[in-house]
């Protein structure tokens, strides 16, 4: 007799297991995929007589758990169904007069899983049969129609090494179908970082602006289970993009349970406290679960105040805090407590503080100037910024500091500088203000549930998620600006779902949902002021904030000395200019060059409706047929201003009332008069996407099963993709009453620098600044795009081996359509002829905008091997092979997060293997647990390697013809700093047959990213734990990164001086700015970081940590 595994039995539950007349029946754990709107499951089956096998009518069925109780009676055919059951572990009992009562313990119900239990009752004495125990988290799930991986509480501990671990990221990496991208972020079946869905208790767990996770991928002890569904589930799952991850919370039980967790670190500093408590009232009406976890770490690669730049990082010190409070309350009422109200709340705050551990004397100025401390600096004291602006404007440091917007928290008075000491003193300039990132979220759900009858279950829920991250980025010494941003948003939604067991063969689910996304994106950056003041921007409008004309030294602009007669004496004119700058009647004294601003405001409302039938003609065959329709409404501004011309001869659509350019879209068509207009695809405004879902599972033998599914999924465009608006009001409030600056005429040869085409007149200085900032830094204001859709196919074979070992192999294919990318296309006239730049002879290009021109094709194989045992060796092995093709150039900037495609590559239709995925990854989580209380749990990760190198071939325009040509320091579209090959400067050859005099000396491939990095494999965490038998005390040691692998992926050294193949020159790692870091050059390319080599690697991983912990079960 195999006893049902007690692994999932809540501690303290008295076992009422009675050996009944069980003859070779198998517990089926059927999964119909994670249910977006539900956190409940069901049990159904047919009770038959042991003699003759006939269905037994009138059998009383009861399911009891510490938190809930359900009951029913079999129908005339012996069939019963209990739906809307809370996730828990139940004891099932079957009673019928004249038959031996039977109880089955350890029946686990998980979210949206329908367990099939079909016992046989006998009139004879109990005979011992055979029960095959199968873990719901195991690889063999013979009735699972969708490809879902469930991780139970104990498996979470096993796959992370210990309970109360924080890293949801690492947990995801131990599952098949999940891959770590080259940035370290989890993606599902190779999707991009915002092409996957996260849920917690059925609540969308992605932010309203970018669709990223909102919980920082930090677990709390309140997670009861995690379900990963790569691809599509059944129609009840609102799958986002490439897959969905759903977390289910623990609930209160009776008897109560709880725990305390204390953790501390020997080096570097870290500590953690976590506690949980769950209880239920004796009558089962009330239950509550509460958990808190607080975690603080201060990881450092080197000792405090050591020069972190020697190992290539400005941020040796990484101080992080995580606080998480979760509460899950239930109140049950009604007949047989068939109704319930759930109130779920989570409040989480995760913060990151990054500061350098000691840039030493190399940061700002030199030791002679008195510098010895950390080197972060406000932009107004950064020597790079100061020298750049001085060179471009001729201004002094003091004058520059007077016109640059002070950073939040910056001392009010600029740091004084003198001729003998051209950089600010350390006391004034040096900061201990770290780079900070705050990622809070609070999530709330109230749900009403009603078991109308045993086979009918209804839920209605309301939820709200608020997640707005703060990015506080100060000048880090490699760029001269300060930035501050809020990014995220709020979701509010409602959902209704009904589950109905129509008959013994059909389980029907229908539902509807609607939710509203309000984004928050508020960016303030000094980059506009700095770059505009140096004339980098289009209109050079920042020059008007300068006290003198940098070209003539005199005041000749509109805004200096306004209203005062300009003297012909240059010295007097200069004095007038200085006075005018400070005292102009148009520009207030102390006016600063404005910041760069970003403030999108479009909202989005999503809705969905679905219908799904699970048809089970036999106990071994299950078919899911369903369809869902998802839609979205984007609150886009009207495109009418773009199409409203005053006459057939008009050349612009200037608003008659405001005289400003109100068109916010890129022109994409022509009207009958040959005027450019905007036409928006209806699927970009109000997309409606039907998504058929078909799946089946078939247990072909006792220990073998197959399943397959097809499902269409959708990813609606994140608001960040189509709304890039700048705050027009910011600029017009300050400068809307001032006439446009004539400097535009000097800088551009035309006063017409406004509008999306930058060719229209400007109605004011404020409008000029607005369009200057909008188009230079944020692009076209509104860029409507259709949603991405995916066709997902997968097939699984699974097998149950002896000794509780199970195997599942799943090949899959996904085809993406209308993938979201940034792209720019050739400008054409109304006849489609390319427009030519009269000066260069090359094509004119439209600005880069969001488009649906991306292509994705993914194939792969997932594998999982599990062994679930209470003692001895158990664990999980997962592996994923993936091959993904896309038309995004590998290793290009933001390849897996809002990617872009160069025009030539797009025109050629090039497809590449993506550069952000390793083709093969694996994870092994092993556990040895002895009856004496010792537990050893290593978790090891393997990565084949990530794509590196820019390849031998690049796409570029050659005489206005897109071509794939050899990639050299001349032809590479990414610029010479990314070149792999260098031509002979005295005999370069042709663009198609270049003379290569030198290469970087590393392995090359035709395509970018065609070579894999050599990884330090077997990144391993190790846990050693001891819990004396019968004791509530648990002692442990957890070692992170046992082998100390901290260096990250190699990246091309962008400051490599090519001497000969594989040989870099002495200037490697430096810039030409002699003012930057005396005696060191650009220090973050020091030798310790392999800064002399063609590739550099930097520490990015977690340093080795030793963590002692004590846990107490309450």
């Amino acid at each position, binding site marked *: 007799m195999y006893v049902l595994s007690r692994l999932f039995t809540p501690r303290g539950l008295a076992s009422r297991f009675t050996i009944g007349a069980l003859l070779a029946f198998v517990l089926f754990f059927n999964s119909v995929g994670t249910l977006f709107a539900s956190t409940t499951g069901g049990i159904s089956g047919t009770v038959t007589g042991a003699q003759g096998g006939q269905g037994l009518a009138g059998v009383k069925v009861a399911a009891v758990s510490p938190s809930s109780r359900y009951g029913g009676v079999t129908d005339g055919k012996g069939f019963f169904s209990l739906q809307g059951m809370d996730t828990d572990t139940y004891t099932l009992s079957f009673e019928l007069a004249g038959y031996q009562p039977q109880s089955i313990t350890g029946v686990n119900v998980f979210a949206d899983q329908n367990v099939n239990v079909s016992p046989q009752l006998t009139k004879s004495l109990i005979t011992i049969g055979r029960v095959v125990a199968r873990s719901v988290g195991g690889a063999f799930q013979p009735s699972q129609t969708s490809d879902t991986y469930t991780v139970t509480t104990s498996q979470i501990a096993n796959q992370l090494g210990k309970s109360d671990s924080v890293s949801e990221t690492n947990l995801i990496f131990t599952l098949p179908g999940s891959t770590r991208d080259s940035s*370290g972020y989890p993606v599902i079946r190779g999707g991009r970082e915002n092409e996957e869905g996260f849920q917690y208790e059925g609540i969308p767990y992605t932010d309203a602006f970018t669709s990223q996770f909102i919980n920082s*991928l930090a677990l709390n002890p309140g997670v009861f289970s995690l379900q990963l569904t790569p691809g599509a589930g059944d129609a009840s799952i609102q799958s986002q993009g490439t897959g969905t991850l759903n977390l289910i919370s623990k609930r209160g039980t009776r008897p109560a349970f709880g725990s305390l967790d204390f953790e501390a670190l020997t080096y570097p500093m870290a500590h953690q406290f976590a506690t949980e408590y769950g209880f239920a009232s004796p009558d089962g009406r009330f239950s509550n679960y509460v958990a808190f976890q607080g975690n603080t770490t201060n990881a450092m690669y080197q000792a405090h105040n050591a020069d972190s730049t020697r190992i290539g990082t400005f941020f040796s010190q990484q101080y992080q805090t995580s606080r998480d409070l979760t509460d899950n309350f239930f109140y049950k009422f009604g007949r047989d407590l068939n109704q319930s109200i759930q109130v779920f709340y989570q409040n989480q705050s995760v913060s990151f503080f990054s500061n350098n551990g000691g840039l030493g004397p190399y940061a700002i100025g030199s030791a002679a100037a008195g510098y010895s401390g950390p080197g972060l600096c406000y932009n107004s004291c950064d020597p790079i910024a100061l020298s750049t602006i001085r060179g471009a404007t001729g201004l002094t440091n003091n004058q520059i500091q007077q016109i640059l917007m002070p950073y939040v928290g910056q001392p009010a008075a600029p740091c004084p500088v003198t001729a003998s000491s051209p950089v600010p003193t350390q006391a004034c300039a040096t900061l201990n203000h770290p780079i900070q990132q705050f990622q809070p979220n609070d999530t709330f759900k109230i749900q009403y549930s009603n078991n109308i009858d045993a086979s009918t279950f209804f839920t209605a829920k309301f939820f709200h998620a608020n997640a707005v991250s703060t990015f506080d980025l100060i000048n880090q010494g490699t760029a001269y600006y300060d930035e501050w941003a809020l990014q995220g948003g709020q979701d509010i939604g409602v959902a209704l779902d009904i589950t109905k067991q129509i008959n013994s063969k059909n389980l029907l689910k229908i539902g509807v949902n609607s939710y509203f996304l309000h984004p928050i994106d508020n960016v303030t950056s000094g980059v506009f002021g700095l770059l505009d003041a140096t004339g980098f921007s289009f209109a050079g409008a920042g020059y008007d904030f300068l006290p003198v004309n940098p070209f003539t030294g005199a005041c000749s602009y509109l805004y200096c000395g306004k209203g005062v007669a300009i003297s012909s004496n240059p010295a007097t004119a200069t004095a007038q200019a200085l006075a005018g700058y400070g005292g102009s009647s148009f520009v207030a004294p102390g006016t600063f060059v404005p910041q760069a601003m970003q403030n999108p405001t479009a909202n989005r409302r999503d809705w969905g409706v679905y219908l799904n039938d699970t048809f089970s003609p036999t106990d071994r065959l299950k078919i899911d047929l369903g369809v869902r329709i998802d839609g979205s409404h984007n609150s886009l501004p009207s495109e009418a201003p773009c199409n409203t011309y005053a006459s057939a001869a008009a050349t612009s659509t200037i608003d008659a009332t405001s005289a400003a350019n109100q068109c916010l879209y890129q022109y994409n068509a022509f009207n009958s008069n040959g005027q450019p207009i905007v036409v928006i695809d209806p699927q970009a405004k109000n997309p409606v996407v039907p998504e058929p879902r078909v799946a089946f599972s078939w247990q072909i033998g006792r220990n073998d099963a197959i399943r397959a599914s097809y499902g269409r999924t959708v990813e609606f465009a994140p608001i960040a993709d189509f709304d890039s608006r700048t705050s027009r009001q910011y600029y017009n409030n300050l400068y809307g009453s001032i006439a446009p600056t004539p400097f535009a005429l000097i800088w551009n040869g035309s006063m017409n620098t406004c509008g999306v085409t930058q060719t229209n007149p400007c109605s004011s200085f404020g409008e000029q600044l607005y369009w200057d900032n909008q188009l230079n830094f944020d692009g076209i204001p509104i860029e409507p795009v259709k949603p991405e859709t995916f066709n997902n196919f997968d097939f699984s074979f699974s097998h149950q081996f002896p000794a509780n070992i199970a195997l599942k192999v799943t090949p899959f294919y996904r085809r993406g359509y209308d993938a979201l990318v940034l792209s720019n296309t050739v400008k054409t006239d109304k006849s489609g002829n390319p427009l030519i730049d009269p000066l260069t002879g090359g094509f004119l290009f439209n600005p880069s905008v969001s488009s649906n021109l991306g292509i994705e094709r993914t194939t792969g194989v997932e594998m999982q091997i599990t062994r679930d045992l209470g003692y001895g060796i158990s664990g999980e092995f997962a592996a994923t092979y993936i091959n993904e093709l896309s038309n995004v150039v590998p290793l290009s900037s933001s390849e897996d997060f809002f990617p872009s495609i160069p025009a030539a590559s797009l025109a050629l239709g090039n497809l590449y293997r993506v550069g952000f995925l390793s083709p093969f990854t694996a994870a092994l989580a092993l556990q040895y647990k002895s009856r004496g209380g010792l537990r050893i749990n290593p978790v090891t990760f393997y990565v084949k390697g990530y794509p590196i190198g820019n390849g031998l071939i690049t796409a570029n325009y050659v*005489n206005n013809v897109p071509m794939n040509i050899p990639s050299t320091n001349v032809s590479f579209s990414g610029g010479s700093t990314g070149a792999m090959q260098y031509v002979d400067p005295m005999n370069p050859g042709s663009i198609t047959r270049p003379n290569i005099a030198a290469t970087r000396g590393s392995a090359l491939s035709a395509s970018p990213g065609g070579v894999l990095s050599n990884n330090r494999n077997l990144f391993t965490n190790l846990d050693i734990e001891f819990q004396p038998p019968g004791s509530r005390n648990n002692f442990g040691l957890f070692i992170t990164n046992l082998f100390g692998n901290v260096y990250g992926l190699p990246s091309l050294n962008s400051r490599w001086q090519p001497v*000969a193949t*594989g040989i870099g020159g002495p200037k490697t790692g430096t810039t*030409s700015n002699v003012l930057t870091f005396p*005696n060191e050059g650009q220090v973050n390319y020091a030798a310790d970081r392999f800064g002399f*080599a063609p590739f550099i690697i930097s520490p990015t991983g977690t340093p080795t940590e030793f963590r002692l912990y004590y846990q107490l079960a309450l």
Partner: protein
Amino acid sequence: MFKHSRNLIALALLGGLVGCTSGQSAVEPAVSGANLSLDKATLAVGVATFFDGTQGTNAVATFRQPNGNSATLVNTPSLTGPAAWLVPAAPASAPATGVDGGTNRITAAPQIQSGVTSPVPVADTLAQSGGVFSYGFAPDNASTSGAIVTTSYTMPFWAATGFTARSYKGGPPAYPQERNGLSGGGTAFIGFAQGFLTLNTPAVAGTYNLAINVTDSVGNSTNFAASATLTSTAGLPPYGAPTSVVEDGAGGLTVNFVAPAGVTETVVDIQDLNYCFATIGGSGLGSVWYSVVVQGSGAQSAVFPANLGPTGSSAGACGSTSGPSVLTGDTYGVFLIGADYPLFEAGPPQNVSQTPTLVGAAGQADITIAARATFVY
């Protein structure tokens, strides 16, 4: 785990919460370095005769891989003459000689990191930019940007007051057309090097030694050497101005000249000083070069076809005028460069021998250069 910020500059930070990153640790990719010992340097010296009859020194050097390409993209050469060969200490014109002044050598400065103040960068004739490449000395040492560098020295070094130093490039028809948008050097490559370096200091009979140092980023140093002997300081006669230049009105022209005795070949270079400036105004395309090679001495003619001008996207609006060699209204210069050694034949792209012949029958590389004759088409 950190969230990504949209539209903000990405930061290179630690991976996030403790234990969040795993399995990405990597090692430096394997790099296979070139075998520098296979590279070879050659040197030839001769007398340079300037148009006014004064004479100086001509130095021709190559530093090539076995396939004829430039051996390295960065190197540090020095040229040491006989003891009596004098480098001026305070020349009237560029380049400054720094520590070379008053000695018998010209040197390039070792490559050091930008911003380094100790040791102080060496001030010398060729500075850190000067190197020897597949055909001649040039300030083309690569920087950390990796961009192609195709500049040329203006010559002669230390030109006398009133004497304008010039640079020289080779173009079609003698050299391949590079101004058609198809050049492997892009728009930066405007013509081929012609290998000679003239210096306004008298040539002295004796042995000249070329030393080239190649140092890598970790201090490994490799040295190369070549030498040449100057036996005669007579030099070639000065080169007179063209006798006539006949324009065909379609962009082509014929240069008639008399090559001095002793000249075995003349490279006639035409430089449109700012192509298309007169047509479109504004900035134009800058210098565009054409070259014809004529053998022998005495009365000669060099014919430049009419349709050698820039074409393709590299020509911009000028390309729309079907590429005449010289556009009406453009100012152009005519250079006559006479040599008694295979000046044209020794250089790329026609010569990819690792050790080309750089001397004539007399065993040295004498050169005579006429003053630039300027015309408006």
